[in-house]
Structure formats: C-alpha cells, structure tokens
C-alpha cells in the first residue's frame, strides 16, 4: 500500500507541472506585467516610470521563459516562470501583487472557509443520505414520486436564488441571524450559509443517492436477506447502506480536501473572509500570483482527494487491496 501511495504521489508531479504551465500560459496571454502594474498602482497620476518600477519590485521585469541575457543556469532560473512557479512545489506561494504574503493569507482564511464548508458537507451528507434512504424505503409509492419530483424541482433552481431568498427571508424579514459577516461568536454567522448550502444541494444529491440505493436493492443478496425475514429497515441499514458506500465514497471523498477552498458564491454573498472570497477578489483584481497559487492548491487538493478515495475503499471494503 505504501508503495502504491508513493507511486500515486510521484504520478501527481507531472500533473502539477502541467497545471502550472497551463495557468502560466493563460495568465500571461491575458495580462502583460504592464497591465498588472497599472491595476495595482491605482488611478491618479500613474507614470510609465512607476510602472517599470513596480515590475522591477515584483520581479515581473524578467523574460517569461528563457532569459537570453544571462549565461548558464540563469538562462532558465532568472525568468518569471521559474521564479514565480517553481517555488510553489515546496508550497512557497510568495507574495501577492499588492505585496502581502499569500501563505499567511491562506493560513488565516482557511478557518472561515472550513467553518462553512465542513458543517455544510457533514450535515448535507447526513440529510441527503437519510432523504434518499427514505425515498428508497417508500419506493414506487406516492411518497417516492413526490420526493423525486421535489428533488427535480429543487435542482432546477439556480443556486443564486437560494442565497438571495434565504438572506431575504431569514435575515431581513425574520431577524434571526446577521445578514452577512463573520467574527466572534461565529455560530450565528455560519448558520444561514450552512442551511442554504445544504438546501441547495438536496435535489441533485438525494436523487443520486436514491439511484445508488435502488441499484443495490435490486441485487440478489438483498432478496436473500429479505427472504430470511429481516425487516425492511434492517435490510436497508445493514446491507444496502453498507454496499452502497463504495459508489458514494467515489463521489464524496474526492471533494473533502477541496472543502478547504471554500465556496465562491456563498462566501462572497455572505462576506465570509474565506478562500473562496479571496479567489473571487483575486479574479476581479486580476492578481496573478494569488490565482496561480489557488489553482495550484486546488489541483493539489484534488489529487489528494483521489488518493484519499483509494484509501477509503480499503477501509470500507477489506477485499480491496491497493497494489
């Protein structure tokens, strides 16, 4: 298993290099360093000298990929790509274009992101699985049909409406929680985003779990179990749930590391100072360093999620061996 893990991790390296190259190419076609400088320097009285100066200060005055002016190893290392991208492999994200430490920023922002994403994920999973089990239990009855229809309607509504509606009802009309923000006594700030996060996912997820359960319940062992006289509930919880966990895990474990990145929409609507908000701001401000760091981090976490999924199989099903 350890050999397998090492192989997987080694395999991740070329992928990360690819990710890095791709984003680098994209961003330098979009934004010349001149553009970045102008964005950062503000509106009033910006001179060409100031732009040159800014580029020099932030290391953007170098050639992109190959520095012909330097001999030896400097040809490759004394370039924007090498200096801005290679260092990320040791998780050194450097400074954002407005001069602040990105690592520090990620460190302070991951708390709020997790505070929203983790409860949303756990409560959501519980709700969706229970709802799906319920529909499976009452399969092919009016209840099931109503449940599925509800799911389809819920998943046909844009996530934006859930947020707008939730904020309007719960915060504005009913005064239950602060309308936005984050701070001491975080509980009151995270209730609403979590509830909205859970509700907005209920349609598609429950329906998906239901179809997984239905597939399991059609298998022979379930019939055998039922024939043995086990109650429907028992069959569902001991056999179906257990055997359905592999397909569920495939979809679920992969996203666990990505929870860390937070949610773009929720965080920006509720003013939560997490990583999702950070990313949106960076996109709007066209801060190349931050976006690059977030892309790298996102890919890293995704790959971690894939590896985690494999490991989780062995935990759920001892027959699975990783070689």
């Amino acid at each position, binding site marked *: 298993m350890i050999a397998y893990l090492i192989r997987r991790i080694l395999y991740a390296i070329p992928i990360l290099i690819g990710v890095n190259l791709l984003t680098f190419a994209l961003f330098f076609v979009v*934004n010349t360093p001149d*553009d*970045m400088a*102008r*964005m*950062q320097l*503000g*509106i*009033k*009285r*910006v*001179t*060409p000298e*100031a732009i040159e*100066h*800014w580029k020099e200060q932030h290391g953007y005055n170098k050639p992109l990929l190959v520095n012909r002016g330097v001999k030896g190893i400097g040809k490759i290392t004394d370039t924007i790509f090498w200096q801005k991208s290679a260092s990320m492999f040791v998780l050194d994200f450097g400074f954002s274009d407005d*001069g*602040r*430490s990105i690592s*520090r920023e990620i460190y*302070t*922002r991951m708390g709020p992101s997790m505070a929203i994403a983790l*409860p949303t994920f*756990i*409560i959501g*999973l*519980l709700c969706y699985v229970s709802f799906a089990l*319920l529909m499976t*239990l009452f399969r092919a009855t009016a209840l099931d049909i109503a449940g599925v229809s509800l799911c389809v309607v819920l998943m046909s509504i844009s996530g934006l409406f859930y947020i707008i509606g939730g*904020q309007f009802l719960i*915060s*504005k*009309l*009913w*005064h*239950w929680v*602060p*309308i*936005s*923000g*984050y*701070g*001491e*006594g975080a*509980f*009151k700030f995270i209730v609403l985003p979590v509830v909205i996060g859970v509700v907005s996912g209920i349609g598609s997820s429950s329906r998906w779990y239901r179809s997984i359960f239905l597939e399991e319940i059609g298998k022979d062992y379930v019939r055998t179990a039922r024939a043995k006289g086990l*109650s*429907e*509930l028992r069959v569902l919880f001991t056999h179906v*749930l257990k055997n359905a*966990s592999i397909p569920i895990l495939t979809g679920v474990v992969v996203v666990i590391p990505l929870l860390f990145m937070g949610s773009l929409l929720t965080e*920006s*609507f509720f*003013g939560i*100072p997490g990583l999702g*908000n*950070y990313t949106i701001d960076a996109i709007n401000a*066209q801060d190349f360093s931050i976006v690059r760091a977030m892309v790298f981090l996102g890919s890293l976490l995704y790959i971690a999620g894939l590896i985690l999924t494999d490991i989780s199989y062995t*935990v*759920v099903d001892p027959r699975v061996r990783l070689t």
Partner: protein
Amino acid sequence: MTHSGNFQLHSRAMNKNLTYLLCFLLCACDVWNNPYPAQDSGKSILYTAFTERPKHLDPAQAYSENEYEFISNIYAPPLQYHYLKRPYQLVEQAAASMPSVTYLDEHHHVLSATATKIAYSVYEIHIKPGMRYQPHPAFARDVNGLPLYLHLTTSDLRDIHAPGDFLHTGTRVVTALDYVNQIKRLADPRLHLPIYGVMSEYIVGLKDYAGTLQQVLKKHPDEYLDLNRYPLLGVELINDTTYRITLQGKYPQFAYWLAMPFFAPMPEEALRFYAQPGMQARNLTLDWWPVGSGPFYLSENDPNTRMVLSRNPNFNSEYYPSEGSNSDKQAGLLADAGHSLPLIDQVVFTLEKETIPYWNKFLQGYYDASGISSDSFDQAVQVNVGGETRVSDEMKQQGITLSTSVATSTMYTGFNWLDPVVGGSSLRATKLRQAIAIAVDYEEFVSIFANGRGIAAQSPIPPGIFGHHEGSAGINPIVYDWIDGQRTRKSLAQAKRLIAEAGYPDGVDVKTHQPLVINLDTTATGVGNKSRLDWMRKQFDKINIQLVVRSTDYNRFQDKIRRGDTQMFYYGWNADYPDPENFLFLLHSAQAKVAHGGENAANYSNPEYDQLFEKMKNMENSPERQIIIDRMVEILHYDSPWLWGYHPKNYVLQHNWLHNVQPNVMASNKLKYWRVDASLRDSLRLDWNHPVFWPLWIGGVALVLVFAGLRRALKRREDMK
C-alpha cells in the same frame, strides 16, 4: 464496522451543534442578529463600513479616498480643513500657526507677494510642541535607552503577526525632523509615489534628491537607507519645532497639499523598525501598519473582515472647534465646543462589499451612518414641493436624519480630441460634439440613476469651488437657454440641425452614405451598468446616431486611453483641493494623456486655453482670476471636449445617537469630531431587531407532523408485509 464508527462521529458533531443552538437560543434571547460581540455594547464605539480593502496605508503612497478614510485619522499633517466653516478654509492641525510665506527673487532677496518676478517661495512651519506618537514597539526602549526591537532575528518574530504582538511599546515627542524626513520619502525610489511628479516641479531639489537616493541604493542595495545622511536642498530643519520648505516660483495651492497625509511626520524609528529582515514576510510594513501621531491608531488590521481604529492615548493636542455658523449652532454642532478630541474611543470598520447587507444593517442599527444607493432612495428620502429633500416618515420615526452636500467632483464623458470623427477643432467635429451634448439628457440621467442626487454640470468646475457661477451666468449656452428664470435644455430639433450641418443628416454621412457609428468605452462590467449603457444608447438614438458600447476591464480601458484608441469614454475626477486649477488642468494640453501621460484623458488642446491656464493657475482668488476663468470656460463650452456630465451630491443618513456629523467633502479626518450615544443605540437596536418567531413554530409543528406521518406509513408498510 468502520462505518458505524463514522456515524458516531457524525452524531457527536451533531450533538455539539445542538448544544450550540441551545446556548444560542437561551443566551441571546432578545437580539439574535447582532453581528458584534455582546461585550462591546455600551461602549463608545463608532460602527462603520468599508467597501474595498485599502491598498496603501503609507502616507507617501496612499492617494485614494478609501485609503484616506483610515490614514487621515492616523497621521497628523501640519494643516487641515476647518470642520464647520464654509467655504472650506485651511486651519492648523499639527502646526502651531498657519505657515508664513516669504517670496524671494533669483538672488534670494525678499519680495512682496504681488511682485511679478518671484523665483522662490519659502514656507516656514512651526509645529505644536509636545505632540506624541501612538504607542508602538518601534519606540520601545530598554533600561539603557536603546531601542528594544531593532536587531530582531527570525526566531524573535516567530509568533508575531502584528505590532500588538510585541510585549513592550513606547512613544516619543514629534519633532520637525520627522516632517522633514517624510518630505524626503516623497522621493524614495523604492516606493510608488503618486505625487512625486507634481512635487518635483515645485520643491527645490527634489528631483536631484531622487537621483541621489537612486545612486545610493544601487551602490548599497542591502543597507538601510538613512535619509538623514542625505540633505534635501529645498527642505531645511531650523530647530526641533520649525522647518522650512522652499518652492520653485509661486504656488499658493501648496498650502492645500500641507493638509494631506503626504506631509505628515514620519519617525525614523519606524522606518528602521520595519526595515528589519523578516518583517515584510509577516506583512509588517509601514504600508500595512501605520505609525502616526494623530487622534487614532490602527489597532486591528484584518482587511478581510474588519479594521479597528483606537484612540491614541498620547494624543491631546486638539479641541472641538468653537466657531461655526448660526445654523451649525442650531443643529447642535457646537455643543461639544472646546472638548478634547477625539470624542469616541474606537472606530470599527467592517468590510461590506455588497450594498444590500450594508443598507439592511444600517436600518437594523448596526451601522451608525450610511450613504444611500439610488435603489433605496425612495425608502429613505422624500422630496417636498420646493424640491427640498428630507427623510421619509418611516425613517423619521426611527430618528434617522439626513445631511447633504455637493461633492467636489465631476463625472464626465470625454471625446477623444485625437479621433478623426469626434475630435479636433474643425467646424464639423465641433458641431457634432455640440449636437451630442444637447441630446444626452443628463437631467434625466441624474433623475433615473441618482434619484436627483446630482447637478447636471455646466463646466468642469463644481459648485463650491471658486470660478463656479450659479443661475443664468453659469449656464452652458451651447446646450441650454435661459427661459423664464430657468435653465432649459435646447430642443432635439436644434441638435438634429447641428448634426445635419456637420454633414450627417439623419445620422448618415453625406460623403460615404454610411450611418454614423460612435464608440463609447467603459469599464462597466459590474452590476447595474447594463441599464446605464442602455440609457446612453437611447440618447444617441434620439439623433439617429448609432452608439456602440465597448465595455472592457479596467486594464484594457486604461491602455486604450493611454494610446488614444477611443472615441468617447466615461471618466471622473475627485478634487485634491478646492481650487479651480485642480479641475481646469484636466484640459490643459501639457497634461495630455497620449503625448505626456498626464491627466487630460481627452487629449484636448487649445492654445488660447493653455495660455490662459498658465496665467490663472498660480493666481490668488481675485476678480481678475474670475475673468480669466470665465473666458476659459467659454472656450470649453464652444469646443465641447467633454459632455460635462454631472456633479454628484452626497447624501448621508445617520442615526440619532450619532452627533456632530457635518458633511465636509474636503476633510477625511472627521472621525475625531463625532460622538456616539451608546446607551441610546443599545436600546433602539433591541427595539428594532426582535426575531420573528412564528415561522419557527410553524416549522417545528410541520416537522413533527411529517415525522409522525412517516412513522405511520412505515408501520403500515411493515404490517402489509
């Protein structure tokens, strides 16, 4: 079996959440939606919001409004604007008296102020003795009087992320040397210096000084740059409380610059402190953690959520002004006259990027003051028969009051003078521009998009600035007629006639038979901009001209402006100081964007105008100056290089527990005058924010019913089997 283990873990998390919920229901039974910690109630704290994280807090680098909101309350430059007096008047802040100005000729002989051959002007500034800096670790000293935190190693900095994390702090008396120090920083080549360009034209020797520093830095790139070792010709230290600044020629507007944080004191200790290795990596920089001698200091700096200004305990040099007009007195603005400033202990700025939460929190009492977006205008403001505005009855019941002022800024739409179609001084282009100026109905714009909170501009000069005329004398005769004592926009027929005369009858070019298409460049990518663009298109439709809106991101827009690759564009200007020069220079050809990289984005050029501008710019306000300005505005009216757009009006709403708020568009260091009645605020917040319970009950009952129903259904199913 691992799975059931998992389940236990989940349910434990659930339990924890449930206990939280219970606590929450029990403890905060009266107000649930208070976004601030409960222990802060009753304290003299002002709650306000900021919409964008400031980029710079270093007084040599900061130049935008959202940055000044903070640092002008932290730094104390020599002068400031009087809080109450109108028109705006400069008074002392850190200076003990207004600076004395001496005029010299080329040979440094003293001249009178009216002399024609003034070569230099010398400003002598005395500062108040005994002012002290905020507590800061840079000033902390050990028993031997040596700086405590000057040779820090990385391990010393391990747990430190803010100046407040240091155990010891100190302070020191402000000296004239600190002021001199800061002026030298205005030429520091390592910084981004927005006003270096202007100041190097005036402060004697500043340009050479930048060169000197550049060379020093090249020679010793890794050493601390000690500004004291390199003298600056135009700035002279006389004694601990006096310094002199020598300017090239006569520049009366210089006094206005002395009221901006560019000229605040900068202690050398702070520079040395932040220059230590490892500081930058921890976001410990002067640009991030200011060190000032003003009424407040930055005690918490988390621009992702909140920034907190706390009262500087060492500040005792200012008192609430006792002079003001009668109406100020009636409004109770003089009640605190003579009190030591500041009047509040803390200011909490919360990041609020979206207008909806901002407005709702204001209505719920969680912000003490708020602007009004046009969307919430009718809710807040009523306009009575005379056209006067007052708060709506609903707001009045809440005790909310309104204050209005015209901002010293102008929002305009420029024509690119270099464009072959709309630009240039030819009769054809001029008529075309004039026709468009008539067609684009800014009165309607102001009424739709700003609910009337603005004045259709007649020239670049907004009201309240010298050179502005009210009434019939002030109208733009190209666009308006003065009929029955009222400004009336000329008819569309007139605009169409001008278009025809320009060679585009019905919007079709006589020569090419192609329809006339004009491009408008904007950065409008945000919310609500589409309707503005639609409106603009409608205006051009009125005279059969096709308007193509090209909206791009800010970078591209700047790039196009710089290359002169536009036809029309939206732009705005916020005054640095209340002088017509600061507006008219936007059309001076020496400021042309394409040729000189200046602020004249329209690239307008007219030799007569330029000549008059040179003559006018350094004059004192006088009837002669007025005559020159009138002529300049007349030229502008005819040439119409801009659609003059509008001057926005500021409307500020405040709750009745907030006192001493007087709109002052020039001063941004207003917070020290404000006072908060915290107990009134607490009781009103309680009144306004009772949670609504019935949905909870209904939801609960529904949940119970559903569960009961499910149980029964399940049972029936089992029985059937």
